[in-house]
């Protein structure tokens, strides 16, 4: 190292100066030998140190893996009826979490419900976030008349009575969509589309605000100067820089969508009675609150833990992606 140092600095005079230069060269070398720190690397480092967020991420991951692979390991048919074991307690042989009033296995149904609930959450979020990003990007980038039109529409959607309208549309259009697309797929699509269609507004506002400030930055000017077309500037240059708040909003939206879907199921307007979503299981179980309270508690706790994990993750992501906003 010393030799290398002297090779770089042939005109070394005093020993003190030599020491300083040696030191700085060593620093430089250690910095250069490390991998460069990226924005996402920094964010990941901060997220990893957010203990609650890591717990949330772990629990969510476990739930996702369990609902995908659970049915493979726990080979009980969720549709099977066990006429001997009705309303049996958890830990009954053959039924780890007990059975309902007609002998359905609760754990098998909870796995199945998890698939639906988590899938609804993610797909509805994707719809809401893509729609919101598109509207916000167009409004923020082009401004003027288009901006006014899109923001008026956003305001209008924010004034719509969410829950009543959701109940109404899902209830009224459930039958025709089911006929057209099949029972499970049809309901899934209408629930997810309606939740997404009534939840994109906050993302649109966030994205619009980011676009308004980013489109005046030098890198955008440079891209314009290089003759990059508008679509690439919007989606390749500006959008990636606006991702942090979108990711946070998207995470929280997954939780909201899961709660909304379970509420629809609870009010008898979501998936049909024979589809065991978590919300549906709570409703069905609530009729046996006295005799078999676990029937409602288990799926309810599953919804709660999933959404809580997602909210904790959202909190951690907010701190990790935007440390200035940290409180």
């Amino acid at each position: 190292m010393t030799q290398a140092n002297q090779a770089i600095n042939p005109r070394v005079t005093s020993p003190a100066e030599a020491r300083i230069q040696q030191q700085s060269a060593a620093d430089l070398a250690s910095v250069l030998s490390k991998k460069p720190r990226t924005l996402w690397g920094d964010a990941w480092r901060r997220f990893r140190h957010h203990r609650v967020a890591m717990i949330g991420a772990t629990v969510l991951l476990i739930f996702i893996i369990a609902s995908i692979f659970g049915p493979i390991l726990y080979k009980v048919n969720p549709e099977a009826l066990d006429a001997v074991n009705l309303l049996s307690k958890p830990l009954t042989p053959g039924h780890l979490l007990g059975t309902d009033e007609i002998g359905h296995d609760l754990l098998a149904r909870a796995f199945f419900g998890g698939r639906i609930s988590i899938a609804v959450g993610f797909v509805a979020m994707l719809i809401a976030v893509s729609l919101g990003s598109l509207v916000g990007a167009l409004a923020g980038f082009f401004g003027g008349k288009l901006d006014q039109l899109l923001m008026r529409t956003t305001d209008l959607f924010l004034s719509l009575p969410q829950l009543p309208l959701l109940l109404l549309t899902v209830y009224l259009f459930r039958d025709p969509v089911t006929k057209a697309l099949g029972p499970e797929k049809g309901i899934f699509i209408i629930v997810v589309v309606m939740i997404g269609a009534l939840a994109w507004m906050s993302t649109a506002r966030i994205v619009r605000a980011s676009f308004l400030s980013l489109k005046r930055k030098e890198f955008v000017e440079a891209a314009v100067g290089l003759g990059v077309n508008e679509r690439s500037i919007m989606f390749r240059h500006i959008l990636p820089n606006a991702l942090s708040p979108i990711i946070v909003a998207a995470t929280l939206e997954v939780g909201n969508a899961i709660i909304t879907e379970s509420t629809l199921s609870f009010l008898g307007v979501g998936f049909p009675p024979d589809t065991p979503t978590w919300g549906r299981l709570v409703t069905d179980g609530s009729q046996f609150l006295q005799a078999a309270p676990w029937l409602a508690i288990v799926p309810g706790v599953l919804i709660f833990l999933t959404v809580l994990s997602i909210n904790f993750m959202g909190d951690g992501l907010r701190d990790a992606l935007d440390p200035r906003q940290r409180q």
Partner: protein
Amino acid sequence: MSQYILRRVLISIPTLLVISFIIFAVLALAPGDPLAQFAVNPAIPESTRQLIRQQLGIDQPWHIRYVKWVIAMFQGNWGFSFQTKAPVIDLIWQRLPQTLQVVGVAYILAILLAIPIGIISAVRQYSFFDQVATFFAFIGFSVPSFFTGLLLMLVFAIGLHWFPIVYSSTLEITNWSSFVLQIRQMTLPVAVLVVQQTAALTRFMRSSMLDNLPLEYVRTARAKGLAERVVVLRHVVTNSLIPVVTLIALGIPTIFAGAIITENLFRVNGLGQLLITAIQNSDTPVVMALTFIFAVLTVTFNLVADVLYGVLDPRVRYN
């Protein structure tokens, strides 16, 4: 200022018209016939069915029906329920008090709880109290409210027998003991809404306080030698309340939507329960009226929030 309010009120009229048009279109274009129950009944001849259609006014194209609905609504005529044949407005007046009672009490309690908790949380940031409050707030908005309701029902109604499971809508308050009964049966539905609303409001209050605490006017107040109590309560809290008050106004439609869930859980015969039964019975006039009322609530309180913000914060300029 008054010009701004006038303009906002004028804008909200077309907004409400568009919203009512959307709701009307959804209801009209949906397949399914309110007369479906008659359709399968062979005892009713086609001519009678046509007559019923005419009486209910559903023999005309839907855009004409919409115009008629708007005109009638402005004249205070909300139509008649297909199901009970009673005027919709009467049904709403009948159900409104129960909803207002539960929603009103719950919201006041939530505000009274959330503001002090938010203040203490912010002043003692990261203290044990703050951590606990934050944790409970996270729980509060991660539990679906129907599940909070079920758990409360399980513990306090079924387990401890402190409160009745089902709300009795026929109870009349005539003396002290019936008043106590009313309070007891209201407790659980109110509690569900309180949990949900307190969680959100506490977070708002806390973060608004945290925005204000590091500002210079706070340092000035301390430098003047004011007691910390006075600095926090008179200076920081009053300023922090500005955005919170607007959020309280914005939250009013949400708590009414929350009532849809609690009323169905505890069988409170309020507007939320009326809406669900009307949807399930394809009782279009009732559904239309109630959904429209929810839209009016949302638009009105958006307006109230905007105006309040300007009244309370002189830095906001309307143009």
